[in-house]
């Protein structure tokens, strides 16, 4: 019994590692995959490889509509650019503040991040109160040679598994 118990851990871990390696890490992805609506979330974007073997020099993320505040992570060796846009009509912020400008695009430039290493890029956002919806964060990965665009959004009823370069997505679930 003890012998069996000793093996459960490694087995589960190896399977988990293989599953996590398989499809998810072939793409630029976001964690967590679902988060409570109408709350703050710490999103982590993983860049698992370069563009066709070339080192990554920039990661640009466009934020979906409905995100009223966003704060990118500071990273050693990367310069952060925050691009804002004016809202058509001022929106009510979470603390009763009126908001006129929202972050449209966040970009980390620098590196270069070699193809054989990975890195993560953090973003704290306030998610909108739209439980059940999926938010897409299209990502442009710029490299020393070439660009990979993780911007494909599945059409209604289509699974994103079939897409070649799907945009990272977060599903909003009801707040507990």
């Amino acid at each position, binding site marked *: 019994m003890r012998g069996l118990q000793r093996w459960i851990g490694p087995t589960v871990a190896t399977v988990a*590692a293989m599953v996590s390696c398989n*499809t998810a890490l*072939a793409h630029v992805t976001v964690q967590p995959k679902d988060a409570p609506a109408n709350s703050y979330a710490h999103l982590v974007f993983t860049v698992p490889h370069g563009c066709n073997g070339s080192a990554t020099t920039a990661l640009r993320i466009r934020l979906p509509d409905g995100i009223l505040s966003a704060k990118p992570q500071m990273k050693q060796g990367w310069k952060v650019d925050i691009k804002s846009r004016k809202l058509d009509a001022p929106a009510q912020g979470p603390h009763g503040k009126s908001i006129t400008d929202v972050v449209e695009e966040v970009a980390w430039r620098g590196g270069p991040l070699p193809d054989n290493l990975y890195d993560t890029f953090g973003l704290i956002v306030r998610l909108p109160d739209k439980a059940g919806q999926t938010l897409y964060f299209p990502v442009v990965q710029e490299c020393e040679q070439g660009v990979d665009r993780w911007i494909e959004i599945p059409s209604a009823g289509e699974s994103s598994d079939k897409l070649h370069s799907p945009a990272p997505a977060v599903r909003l679930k009801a707040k507990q």
Partner: protein
Amino acid sequence: MRNLARAAWWWLLAVVLLPSAAWAHASLIASNPADGVLLARAPSTLTLTFNEPVEPLTIRIVDQSGASADVTQIRRDGAQLVLTPPTTLGDGAHVISWRVISADGHPVGGSTTFWIGWRGVNAPQVVRSDDMLLRGAIWLVRLAIYLGLFVGAGGAFFVAWMRGPSTPAMRAIGNVVNSVALAALALSVGLQGLDALALPLSSLLDLDVWIVGAHGSFGLSAAIAAAALLLALLSHRASGALAKVMSLGALVGVGLALATTGHAATASPRWLTTPAVFVHGVALTFWIGALAPLALAMRGPRQTTVNVLTRFSRAIPFAVAALLASGLLLAIVQLERLDALWTTSYGRVLAFKLALVALLLAIALWNRLYLTSRIERARLKSRRHMRRTIVAELVLVVGILGIVGLWRFTPPPRALTVAAVPFFTHLHTGQMMADITVSPGHAGPINIAIQLRTPDEQVLSAKGVSVTLSSADNGIEPSTAEAQSLGGGQWRVSMAAPVAGRWTLTLDVLISDFDQLHAAAPILIN
């Protein structure tokens, strides 16, 4: 808790130990033969180079008839797959359709097309290389061939049939233009090969270049032209009936050589255009061929001059009428509409040629109506006059032939719009509309023209358009190319659909850095 911590460590270890290349989908970096190339001979092995080592799933070679053969002899060499085709590949198109598993366990597919011997059926001969030196050489060689055919073979015919003066000067002219043209003809095969393979002049010594050049209608035309030039050379050395037969053969040969290849002779309907080019060529050869012997006759005895002139004057109206009628017919077929005469480079070449031809006709008319009657009335000075105007005509002819040689580099409007019946389809999604024209609509190299609009009929501006073609029916995996913008929402790309049947065309339209529209439509290739 301790178990959990240990599991976490194992997880980390496993992640680190899994092959480091396992993080990306494999993608094809290069292939040999490269996509779209034309080869002279069948390659014994094919290579696919990926960005990481891959495991082949299915790799097949599909030829233009749709027959597919699985490749079973596959050697792995690092990130390369070296394939040995199951049989020797024949002429025409071949698609390598591959499906492999990348190290991350994802199957990835793609295809690449190459051609052996020739590219497509009756693909219009449009210069592919931008090499000015090569273009200049092609033009000069063509001019030399024209002069040999028209002045040389035409001159031999005139001497034999219209009893033109068979003087040493005439024979010398014939020998020179015919010999130069024969050499130019040989060289033209190599230049044609260089052009087809898109190689520079420095590769002229490569045997493959000559094999490709001699392929198809161009090689056949060159062989007929060479025979015509040889007959013309020999007819100068013969006399009487033999010379007549030989020079007639040369004249017919010129017409056949011209009618075998080129834009005009291969335009549709061919039952009309091929004979028209033949008639145009024969009439032209008769006229131009007469000029040198006539100029020389002006120096001979007066009675001979008058006799030759009379015979020529009787025959030439028929030749000119045939020339103009066939020329008009070909111009209508090639241009399709009048404004193409100044809006296309083909039309501008034609307009310039017509202007010079009008000048030539005016001089000829002056000779015929004014000078000829004066010579008949024995005015001494008029013969010198006539000789000068004929030499002027010859100079003008060289100019016209030089301009005609430029057509080698300008596809006619007809070929630009339709080489055959194009395939048209309209795509409509919630965010865009696309008019897609695939021409020609039959198997081979194809041009895809795309007009993008928004659903409310406005021009849809895009940053980039990539087009993917695949044919599940033919077992051909997708192949993708980037289209080029022509402005105004118009995009164009050249690809290959070498097998007839149902294909799927997929459009990925990049609207901004982060927005992409996607649509797919079935395409029928005959």
